[in-house]
């Protein structure tokens, strides 16, 4: 089990001690060209989570590679670089550059659906293009705003991804209580935090069932119990996002809470909880080996009937 930060939720240069408490540091998404990001107001709080419309503000790949990466390499933990873009070529070009950087342990592709018509098609295209340019570990980060995230995960897997990061934010909105106009400058923004947790848990569970890829689970994790649940649903790593804003000490606290959970469950290692949601009650958590969740290639869509 590895503990990461969620992309865009920590800057290791302004808070190196927080990054050092993780197993992996993930950068904010880097795009080929610099981006100022969206106009303020960029963040808002709702009763069930927070909204952001940062707009992928970043200094661009060149400055990232020249200025930021050398400083990040001094961190005591491996660095994953999150890559974004507006076409498969964008991703491919960034991967080609990063492939040459020894400091980069892995690349996370922020597949934020440039092609809304067919999310799995664009995931396939982006991962395949990136795969051609790099031998580094490639994680595909997926959006939960699709009818069936498992089909997107399967496409990413078939295109050559080495892992999945699940999930990105959902579109949400809040209104100013006095003017009744949108709080965020952009109208709507990305919803993160508690509201995302059941959605993210379902996404992790569905993708663990549909693919063999290792999964970084995230979405509203703020305790050892939540971390345990993502592991049980099939994630082997968990990333902290919104919780870091209110609690920069969260990595240490969550590790402590996780060992308490493991003790409570009688587990030698919390890793034994990975995939527990897929095991039959009788075999639950017995033995140290990690049971792989069953794969079903021909998943039935009738599972889509909810209410």
């Amino acid at each position, binding site marked *: 089990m590895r503990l990461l930060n969620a992309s*865009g*939720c*920590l*800057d290791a*240069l*302004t*808070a190196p001690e*927080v990054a050092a408490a993780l197993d992996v540091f993930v950068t*904010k998404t880097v795009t080929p060209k610099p981006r*100022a*990001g969206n*106009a*303020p*107001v*960029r*963040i*808002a*709080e709702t009763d069930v*989570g*927070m909204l*952001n419309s*940062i707009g992928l*503000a970043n200094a661009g790949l060149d400055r990232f590679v020249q200025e930021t990466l050398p400083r990040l390499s001094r961190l005591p933990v491996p660095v994953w670089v999150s890559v974004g873009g507006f076409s498969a070529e964008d991703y491919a070009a960034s991967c080609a550059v990063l492939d040459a950087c020894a400091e980069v342990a892995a690349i996370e592709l922020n597949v934020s659906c440039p092609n809304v018509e067919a999310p799995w098609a664009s995931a396939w295209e982006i991962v395949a293009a990136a795969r051609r340019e790099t031998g580094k570990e490639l994680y595909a980060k997926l959006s939960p705003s699709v009818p069936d995230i498992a089909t997107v995960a399967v496409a990413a897997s078939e295109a050559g991804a080495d892992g999945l990061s699940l999930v990105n934010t959902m579109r949400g909105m809040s209104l100013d*209580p*006095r*003017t*009744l106009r949108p709080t965020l*400058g952009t109208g709507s923004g990305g919803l993160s*935090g*508690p509201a995302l947790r059941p959605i993210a848990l379902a996404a992790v569970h569905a993708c663990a069932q549909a693919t063999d890829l290792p999964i970084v689970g995230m979405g509203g994790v703020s305790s050892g119990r939540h971390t345990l649940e993502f592991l049980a649903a099939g994630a082997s790593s968990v990333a902290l996002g*919104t919780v*870091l*804003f*209110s*609690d*920069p*000490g969260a990595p240490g606290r969550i590790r402590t809470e996780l060992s308490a959970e493991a003790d409570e469950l009688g587990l030698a290692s919390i890793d034994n909880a990975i995939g527990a949601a897929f095991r039959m009650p009788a075999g639950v958590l017995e033995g140290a080996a990690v049971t792989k969740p069953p794969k079903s290639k021909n998943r039935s869509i009738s599972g889509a009937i909810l209410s």
Partner: protein
Amino acid sequence: MAERMRPRQEQLVVVGNEPVGSYTLLRVARGPVDPGQPGQFFMLATRERLLPRPMSLCLAPAGELGFLIDPIGPGTRGLCDAARGERITVFGPLGHGFRLDVAHPVIVGGGIGMAPLPFLAERLPGAPALLGFRSRELAEASALLPGAEVVVEPTLVTEPLTSLLASEGDITPFACGPEPMLRAVGALSPRARLAWEAPMACGYGACFGCAVAVDGALVRLCVEGPVLEAARVEVAVLPAGGLRSPSGAASLASRGKAAA
């Protein structure tokens, strides 16, 4: 960040919570937390809200940290309701405060913008202080800054400042207040040191939510500020009308009522 105090995250006990006019002075036992420099701020977690709220340090009596809070929404109301003995998670000191290295400082504040000024005044003994408020009740908070010259609307705090600048040209305003006030002060004195505001989720550079344009580039106010030199700030990227402009503050409710 090397020269500054490393911020700490601690659960501090509330030792007092008193009304000061319409505001509340929340005092917590300081514990191992350093008060930092005037103009720096702390993130205060509030009951039942997801995100902490940025608050300037207002007073730093021995063993305590004091925050002056305007209850304008759920987060600030929660802090104003904190009971003695309750624990509050405090993270700080954060950001860059006022650099004090000038010959003739003048302290200028507007409304709740006076929050960081009592602590600042302690470090600038003898500096004249000018405070402006929208009402007599709000002006009661000026008691925290004894000796300050206080004006109430329709008089704006820029009026006594303009007189002072006319008579003593080499003064440097140290100001905190609503955005239109800061703009006006900056226009009167480009070297003024201004404590800006922006919505903040984290306060320590993690979220990129607090972006403002400085020298034409978007920077994180919690990292580069909140105190910035007037001439460097391009206020145009702040939300239309600013966070605390009179037009921004004019609520649907009050306008609706006036029309009714």
